[in-house]
């Protein structure tokens, strides 16, 4: 290459090249020219991503920041729980259920026991029913608190996390005092409960519950009218009631789309029939409405807990169940309203002391199915909000 000033001939050559490039990349007549080249890209979201709350991989097809297609890839936490149930006796299955939805172990225990109790036709004593409902509702509170804290963090709101986990710690303390464990509770037995309440537990719970409405006000003060929070959640992941039913979505997602369907009301188990509580719904079916529904549900938990504590009376905590459980060779399906939606167990017995088949219908697994539908057309950063709003626990998705 020669140094020196650029000659006219060189300038001509450069002009000709530029002209040729322009001609080649010109849009067809009648269309606006594009400034940048448009290209779809495939992107891996996870499996190690802080917002996935576990190991979830989503294969994204994106156009710039916009999601064209999202394909969840699950199974990283598959431990063969359903196979394990088949190999062990009925009571030995209860601890395995703790490890499915590990944020809400009590409700898992409950659904599992309920299926076997239905198979046996056992009557649960009233005190056990009330304590079961108390444990369930405490668990629902703690599950919603974890959801509130973590999905706030995902969207950049760090403060609610500290408030939510403050109360969650207290709830875990109650569980610890009751059954010795904080997370993997194993706190129910077929036919009732393992232990009675410790002295003073109810009084301390009452104090905690009395305080809760003010605490929930605190969370709402941070988020409900927060402009940034609203900007990130209103109109994100809108889904209609019809589509929810078509996708099999249950729990706060269904109620956030305006369907007042809650298994505690529709098909009451234990003593929910006699308790007075509302089923909160919202009409728009977006991420913000699902947030409001969950916060409202926490307020209803307070109502239920108060009523249960008032009704508590002395009595048996275990029904009449044989030491070796051998149900008749039949099949049943029993389900409860877990914090995430309908949690059901399908149990097939062959008359021995081990279940022939124990299948779990996990709400997280079914709800995650709708993620591609929710994410389509949104930005990548909204995907974080959407994973949060479905409220999945990967232990339950993969089992």
């Amino acid at each position: 290459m020669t140094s020196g000033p650029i000659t006219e001939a060189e300038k001509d050559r450069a002009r000709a090249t530029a002209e040729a490039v322009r001609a080649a990349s010109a849009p067809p007549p009648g269309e606006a020219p594009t400034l940048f080249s448009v290209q779809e890209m495939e992107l891996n979201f996870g499996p190690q991503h802080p917002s996935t709350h576990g190991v979830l991989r989503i294969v994204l097809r994106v156009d710039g920041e916009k999601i064209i297609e999202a394909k969840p890839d699950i199974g990283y936490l598959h431990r063969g729980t359903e196979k394990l149930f088949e190999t062990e006796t009925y009571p030995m299955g209860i601890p395995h259920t703790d490890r499915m939805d590990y944020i809400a172990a009590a409700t898992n225990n409950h659904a599992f026991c309920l299926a076997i109790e239905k198979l046996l036709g056992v009557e649960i004593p009233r005190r056990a029913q009330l304590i079961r409902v108390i444990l369930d509702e405490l668990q629902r509170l703690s599950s919603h608190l974890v959801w509130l804290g973590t999905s706030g963090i995902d969207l950049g709101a760090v403060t609610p996390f500290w408030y939510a986990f403050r109360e969650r710690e207290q709830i875990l303390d109650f569980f610890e005092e009751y059954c010795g464990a904080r997370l993997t509770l194993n706190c129910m037995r077929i036919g009732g409960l393992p232990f009675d309440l410790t002295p003073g537990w109810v009084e301390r719970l009452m104090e905690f519950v009395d305080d809760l409405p003010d605490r929930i006000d605190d969370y709402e003060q941070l988020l409900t009218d927060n402009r940034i929070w609203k900007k990130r959640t209103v109109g994100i992941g809108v889904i209609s009631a019809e589509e929810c039913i078509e996708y099999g979505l249950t729990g706060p997602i269904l109620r956030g789309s305006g369907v007042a369907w809650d298994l505690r009301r529709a098909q009451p188990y234990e003593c929910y029939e006699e308790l007075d509580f509302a089923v909160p719904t919202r009409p728009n079916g977006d991420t913000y409405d699902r947030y409001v529904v969950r916060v409202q549900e926490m307020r209803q938990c307070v109502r239920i807990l108060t009523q249960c504590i008032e009704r508590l009376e002395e009595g048996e905590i275990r029904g009449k169940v044989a030491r070796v459980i051998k149900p008749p060779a039949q099949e049943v399906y029993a389900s409860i309203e877990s914090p995430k939606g309908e949690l059901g167990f399908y149990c097939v017995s062959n008359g021995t002391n081990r279940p022939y088949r124990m299948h779990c219908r996990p709400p997280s697994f079914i709800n995650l199915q709708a993620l591609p539908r929710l994410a389509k057309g949104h930005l990548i950063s909204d995907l974080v909000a959407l994973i949060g709003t479905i409220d999945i626990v990967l232990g339950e998705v993969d089992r």
Partner: protein
Amino acid sequence: MAEEQTPPPPTPPSGEPAAKRPAPAAKPESRDAAGHPWVRSIETGVPGAVLGSKEFAREITVTVDRAKIADVARHLKEVEDFRYCVDVTAVDWRDRQPRFDVVYHFYSFSKNDRIRVKCAAGEGEDVPSIALVFLAANWPERETWDMYGIRFSGHPDLRRILTWEGFKGHPLRKDFPLEGIDTGAAVYPEEWPEGGGPSADDPNRKAVS
């Protein structure tokens, strides 16, 4: 606070669910449910589909012809208003012919009740997919394929879901070894049991209780 009052609950798309159900009987008993209106409805809607029915613990189970399962699902959805497909799974009856039962659960918001539909499928036999009738059945059918090796014909995307592509075998089959198979990923291969260890219902297996 801004969201203090709850809006009046709107009616579900297909009517208000009934509020109360009678408590289950103390000792549930199994009986024939051939006279049940839903069973009759399936019989008239899809002639020749119903092979048997029973009622246990207030649950209706209908056994139908495998080839007609998609028609039965469509009939239940469109005529009987079972619009919510709760679950699809299977049971492996190892020594029976045909070997598998594919089990479907449906729920109706207007009836506030459930129905269980079963169809038998032999080894290597395809079951018509209902994933195009109920979008909710998509992943459960994939899981059933993954865990039991039952193919669903007409499924839009029948891939393994919990195990990975290339995994050998179907883990929930009764003859799949309990301790798993050698996938080549074992950290201590010398401790791996010969042939993968006993299967779940092996009588010689050591079991507690």
